[in-house]
């Protein structure tokens, strides 16, 4: 196991966040967080390549902050201080800049959550019209005792064609009925692909090329 894959060190704050909370002072003995020098910040090659690829797509490299953070999160499990330092070093921005972004958006994790599963149930217009509130309620109910399964409502996930729908660890499934909630939870716990027959990615399409895009 390389140093990069080693377990994260114990988080510093009670809630495990990389940022002090409202009630926390800074640690005045630390060095201030300027842009980490590439000479002293080790970044896994593939992560670096991925971040650089994202940067190359925008005229201003800062625009790549979100995809770069997501890439580091996939690697580290969450936006840990080390993950943010690595992104900052490649992007040549301060870790503070990235921390403000990582804490702003919902899909960046600020705490370590080992073996954690996200179920985002869409409750926006199309899905609501087709019964999303009941689907959401069902999920809340069946997952109420599962502390590793995190259910929350979400705004339009851009898959209205399979409304009402949910995103399970990034996999889009739908249309859903309230009784599907139990199946989804069982699938997650068993480590099976969720609702295989109703995954957006497995739907037949006229143009197979489009699937890859």
């Amino acid at each position, binding site marked *: 196991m390389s140093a990069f894959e080693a377990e994260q060190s114990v988080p510093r704050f009670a809630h495990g966040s990389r940022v002090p909370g409202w009630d926390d002072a800074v640690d005045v003995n630390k060095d201030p967080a*300027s842009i980490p020098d590439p000479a002293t910040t080790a970044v896994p090659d593939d992560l670096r390549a991925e971040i650089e690829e994202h940067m190359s797509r925008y005229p201003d490299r800062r625009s790549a902050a979100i995809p770069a953070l997501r890439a580091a999160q996939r690697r580290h499990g969450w936006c840990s201080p080390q993950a943010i330092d690595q992104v900052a070093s490649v992007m040549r921005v301060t*870790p503070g800049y990235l921390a403000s972004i990582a804490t702003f958006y919902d899909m960046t994790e600020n705490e370590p959550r080992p073996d954690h599963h996200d179920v985002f149930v869409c409750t926006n217009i199309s899905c609501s019209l087709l019964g999303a509130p009941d689907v959401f309620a069902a999920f809340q109910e069946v997952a109420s005792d599962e502390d590793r399964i995190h259910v929350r409502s979400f705004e339009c996930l851009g898959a209205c064609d399979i409304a009402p729908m949910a995103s399970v660890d990034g996999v889009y499934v739908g249309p859903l009925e309230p009784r599907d909630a139990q199946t989804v939870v069982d699938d997650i716990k068993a480590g099976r692909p969720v609702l295989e027959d109703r995954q957006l990615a497995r739907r037949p399409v006229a143009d197979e090329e489009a699937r890859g895009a």
Partner: protein
Amino acid sequence: MPRPEVRMVTLTIDGREVEAPENSMLVDGAKHGDVEIPVFCYEPKLGPPVGACRMCLVEVEGIPKLQTACSTPVKDGMVVHTQTERVRKAQEAVVEFLLINHPLDCPVCDKGGECPLQDISYGWGGGTSRFIEPKRHFRKPLALSPLVAIDRERCILCYRCVRYSQEIAEDYQLVLLERGAHSYVGTFDSTPYVAPFAGNIIELCPVGALTSRAYRFRARPWDIEAAGSICTLCPAQCNISFTVRDDRVLRVMARDNPDVDDGWLCDKGRFAYQAVHADERVVEPMVREGGTLRPVSWERALDEAAAALSRARGRVGALAGDGATNEEGYLLGRLLREALDCNDLDSRVARGPSRETARALSAPALGATVPDVEFAHAVLVLDCEPMDDMPILDLRIRKGVRRHGMRLVVATSRPSSLDPNAAVSVRFAPGAGEAFLAALDAALAGGDVDSAAGAAGADPAAVRELARLLREAGDDVVVVWGERLTGGPRGEQAARALLNVCARLNLRRDGAGLLEIPSSANGRGLREAGVLPGAGPGWSEAADGRDAAGIARALAGGELGALYLLRTDPVRTHPDRTVWSAALARANAVIAHASVLTEGLLEHATVVFPAESYAEKEGTVTHPDGRVQRLRPAIGRPGGVRAEWQVLADVARRAGLEIALPTGAAATKLLFEAVPFYAGLSLVDLAADGVRWPERDAASALDAPAWEPVELERPPAAPSPNGALRLGTFRPIWAAPEVEVSPALRFLSARARVELSPGDARRLGLASGARVHVSHDGTGVAAEVVVRSDVPAGSAFLHEAQGANALSSGEPRLVEVRPA
């Protein structure tokens, strides 16, 4: 980009016709009609308005909704109402809203009495609130850094502090975390917000959320007085206001002068006032007796000093530096030249160009102002690090790039903190500034770039690119350069090369020119007052004498017998520390004006006069761009401290000079009479903002004819490393005795560090944090390694702290770096 032309438009505010500059924001336009519109988030110095707080809502006829006056530009014929019922209600609502979670802290809040939130609540608030729910409560105050405390309950999320960190200081350390109602001001991973300009957020915060840990609970606004003066801790000479309570300085705040500091201060300027009242401070005259310095009476100290100097008549050297005023420099010159028949005096650390060339460099027509830096088409930062050498100029350069599209080019040995903002950065070997300029000159004149660039250890293609950019960016080019460029044995040649470059770029015009950063706070003023070998007041002709390095050698060799040190300790600040130690040890008498006993004085001074702090001083100093500024005493002198102009005059009188000086103002008058281009100035003219002498008629007294490019000598090649490393030294912003004795700042005191490139570090088997010995010819210093990827291979940069000047000399040299 050149300054935009301002056109005035007419609008109506509250029924009155008002003339205001076109495109100014309504908040500012309204001031022209004496109408105040309340604001929180609006601060024009922070750049374009953000409209975050909604405090400034006003009614504009023709627009159905209320408008934020901070982000609505004035237009010709606009009709604005700020006093209608609709506006009043909206403003009341905003105040009510801002106060929902704001604690009722005023009685225990450090901002109370000088708080915009209090003022606006009284002036525009409703006086009551409909909210009866409990407020949010958090632990407070918390440390945001060793210098700044944060109280998150009081924060109104106006974004000023984070905008400052991002857009002015550009350190991007202070950010808003989380979102919406959960937002709060913080940093990454609980790191402290420590940066050279971080303290400005204290003044920017419109509430008591950010407070100075050094000032908290020391005074209330009604206990204090503000006294305007000048910060003389570095050449930037920012305009400041001392907060004084019971004859003690408790705080330093900015006194916005757009021609000097733009309203910002660095943290050294903001917190080093503590040195004024430090225990380490010398407050009585002292004389060395039996090996130790002991306090004595003024009579005795003055007599001993005068006697020792008189004994060494004809064999006395003198140095001046630090915050010595023009008057003191002038009196020192008269003491040496007239009373003691000596010509060996210097205010520079290394020999500079000849008097003629130096005059050409300081010709008024070739001088650029600080605002010129902001509005130039292009700025070349040459052989200096503004962040360390003249911090506030760093902010001005950033502002030029960010707000006015100025093109920045950097040519330095050490990687610059301005590199990320630069269109081109060129690296040359430490000490090879002359060769770089020769290459640039060749590139501008279409000559042979390669050989000079080779001698400089610079990339010829990058030099060509830099030259192209300077040529094509536009007419207004400002060159910001550091004194070290023309210091040392080849200073004359470097200065000529610089003048060639100026001539080729045609910099003798308004809005363009040179801005030199001298190596001491009043370097320019001391030179103009005549503290130079071979140049008297106003660069007049004077008998030639030894420069600083020559004085050291002559003392060590016994040709000079005594040394007068006006606010400087060469053992600490001058190159060749070992030579200086030997020189001071050999001298029969070392007479020093000092506020702290630094190493050289502690060991070798024979008479020490307690120096005034800058808060006690009166007199004038000259800013690097020629602005003569006035120091005003804010507090009385502690203990037995006497005015230094008076001490100099007393010594001079005892040594036989006939000089009558009833007051400090009389000394200023003598100075203004002695320096031809200061002629006609008076303390009254200097008022609060100072006067730039190059803009006055008397400036013609120094005018030099336009420089015609000359044939340059072939510059010597930088030594090739061959396994060793080229030594570059630099003085970090925190390397100052004031920082070391200020309790709040002590944690920042410069540490002995050496910066290496990753390749060299690997070759030497060193990692960041390793302890090493950096040596040359058997002399060495201990340092801690910092590996930086932007350091060019083959160079090592040593922070000038804790004796690092043992290794530096006026000339480029190679060093060995070995694990300690």
